[in-house]
């Protein structure tokens, strides 16, 4: 039950993009086409789950026992950066189709604040290992959801006559605002 609440909380109620404002850059940058939005979402989910696990282990088995909490930020960002590299190399070796689908998005993930935010939030909320895992999965799926919905709307927008000043980022923000309003409705779920 508890795990389900964490999952729904991370995916819908506290949606990383629309309510916590994490991962806005890829949200604005890679949401023009549904296909690429979905791939980006999947790649991010993948890295999120792995990063959540590794940072949890590092925090609880290295940083805490040695009282090195002050190195939290430095350690986490290094872990995430190297993880992304490793995942990229691994996917390239193991599965060519998967690499073709996700490959170009992986380097962008390093600077996706959603990953670091996830790792730090999990520590802040004092989640256990399994909770962290579910939290990472929920956050990733919520991120994918927001990205794909946004891309779907933007594909339609191409046919619309938008005032010149609002073209591009401005209208994206306004739509995101409407989406965020809609997502607030999920708050009643729990």
């Amino acid at each position, binding site marked *: 039950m508890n795990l389900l609440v964490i999952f729904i909380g991370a995916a819908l109620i506290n949606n990383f993009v629309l309510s916590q404002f994490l991962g806005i850059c890829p949200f604005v940058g890679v949401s023009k086409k549904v296909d690429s939005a979905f791939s980006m979402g999947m790649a991010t989910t993948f890295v999120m789950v792995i990063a959540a696990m590794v940072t949890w282990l590092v925090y609880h088995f290295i940083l805490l026992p040695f009282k090195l909490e002050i190195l939290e930020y430095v350690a986490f960002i290094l872990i995430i950066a190297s993880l992304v590299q490793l995942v990229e190399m691994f996917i390239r070796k193991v599965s060519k189709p998967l690499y073709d689908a996700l490959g170009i998005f992986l380097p962008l993930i390093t600077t996706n604040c959603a990953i670091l935010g996830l790792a730090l939030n999990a520590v802040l909320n004092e989640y256990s290992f399994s909770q962290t895992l579910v939290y990472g999965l929920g956050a990733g799926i919520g991120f994918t959801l927001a990205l794909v919905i946004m891309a779907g709307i933007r594909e339609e927008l191409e046919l619309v006559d938008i005032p010149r000043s609002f073209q591009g980022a*401005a*209208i994206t923000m306004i739509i995101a605002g409407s989406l965020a309003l809609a997502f607030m409705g999920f708050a009643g779920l729990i």
Partner: protein
Amino acid sequence: MKEKTAIQEFVKGLWDENPVLVSLLGLCPTLAVTVSAINGLAMGLAATFVLVCSAFLVSLLRKAIPNQVRIAAYIVIIATFVTIADRFLAAFTPDISKALGPFIPLIIVNCIILGRMEAFASKNGIGRSLLDALGMGLGFTMTLLVLSSIREILGSGTWFGMDVMWGSFSPWSVMILPPGAFLALGCLIAGANWINNRRKA
């Protein structure tokens, strides 16, 4: 490209290459912390501090850092300064630190900072890098201040905690909720576009 004067390096960040409104960088903190003017200001200054310090160090070390690991090196440098800023806020201004909470560490992945390191500080001398960083930081702070002022005035009827609206004004709560952040920033970007379009025309 024509070599810019020192003044131009500084001024460009304020408007022409404003990190938020024009380059669309650093949107996460921009949206997240701008619920009140004081938060926006504090976040802007903290990011400026990290930006300037990191730019100084990166530009100083630009010849020593091997190309292959430059990103990793920048990130470590940035993360170190962010930790410093975070700890100082927690030690000396606990209230602000409480409000900005989880967003200070996210300065590390603020694309403005990594972007300026990669695009500018790693290629230019210390003086120019500092000016560039200062300009960008101030541009960021200003944008945050404007956005957070709009949101606080409309959303809570106050500015820096002072009542500024007339008595019967009923605050638009939505402005300080997540959707309000997107809407306000969307309008702000549109406004900036409109001014730029007019200037070009």
